[in-house]
């Protein structure tokens, strides 16, 4: 290359983005311009320092749970497929629109005759919402969780196994549950502040 490369090509060369003939052409040109070679070395040194200290890839905490959460969110956001209806064959198909129309007219007429009020709607044929199962994750080694829905307790129950016991000497005597006391004690101000927002 005899002519000065354009700014973008030179910038790309400085960043080691060029390949093949394009690279060869620039290399030939810069051999006569050592200041650019020096600049490229400075850029390489800079990139090495940054990329050496700041990793390009770091696994997120709880990577398996990460994937599960993504899958769960996708599942929740994906509409359920409509139930396929059996198609009717033959001459019945031609009667269906007329029958539907007659049915609508009858329904309308009946509706004008009934008193206003709540109407029961049969939803047995409607797609049912699929109950979403809670995801449970225990990051600490040795800790496991059993999760189930308790109809007896009318609650969701999670049983933690393998959790370290709280030392007996730990004292909770300063805690209080009485609403009156909480309104009067000094933490009430903090609680009121918390109503404006939360951490971060």
């Amino acid at each position: 290359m005899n002519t000065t490369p354009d700014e973008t090509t030179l910038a790309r060369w400085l960043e080691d983005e060029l390949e093949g003939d394009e690279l060869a052409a620039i290399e030939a040109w810069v051999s006569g311009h050592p200041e650019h070679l020096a600049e490229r070395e400075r850029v390489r040194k800079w990139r090495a320092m940054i990329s050496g200290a700041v990793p390009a890839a770091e696994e997120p905490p709880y990577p398996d749970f990460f994937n599960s959460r993504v899958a769960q969110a996708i599942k929740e956001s994906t509409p359920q497929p409509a139930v396929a209806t059996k198609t009717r064959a033959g001459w019945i198909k031609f009667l269906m629109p007329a029958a539907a129309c007659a049915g609508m007219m009858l329904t309308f007429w009946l509706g004008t005759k009934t008193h206003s009020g709540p109407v029961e709607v049969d939803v047995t044929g409607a797609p049912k919402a699929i109950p979403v199962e809670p995801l449970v994750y225990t990051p600490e080694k040795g800790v496991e969780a059993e999760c189930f829905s308790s109809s007896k307790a009318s609650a969701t129950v999670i049983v933690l196994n393998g959790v370290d016991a709280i030392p007996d000497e730990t004292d909770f005597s300063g805690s209080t549950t009485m609403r009156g006391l909480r309104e009067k004690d000094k933490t009430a101000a903090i609680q009121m502040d918390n109503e404006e927002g939360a951490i971060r």
Partner: protein
Amino acid sequence: MKLWLWMSACGVLASSSLTMAQEDPGKSKVGMVRVTVYHATNGNPKDAGVKTTAVPKETCERLGSEALLRFKHYGTLGQDTQPLLRSYESWAQPLKPSEEVLVRFDAKSHPTKKTTVLDLELWLSHKKILKTDVHLEGNRPLFVLGPEWRKGRLIIAVALAPETKPAP
């Protein structure tokens, strides 16, 4: 004229405050969450060594109805109620001033009339022990059978709390 200027200034201040408060819809409160810690034991409840508050009979019956949560005695160690915000997380510290039990939660989706889905973390002894997304309904709490303590176990209950009017 001066009165007019003064009133205009007040109006500007008031509207800017209103604007700031309305600016971030994420700060709006969409519910209240109550976290209660019970001490459950089959031994002498006085072994807890602290004065616990009596647990309502209905709650005792509810806990006792489930085999894994059934103990002879229950006592309330502490409780904390915090707002559930649209886009921000909240922390409950039911055994204040102790940080032994902390619960972090935020709204995973916009609450409906029936269900509130929370992204919830239980922290014990400054360690994240449990992470879950839990569906809470009006009268359907979450019970977590937690660690042992003083010859019993802690049960951490998370439930939707009714909105309370501020004290006069």
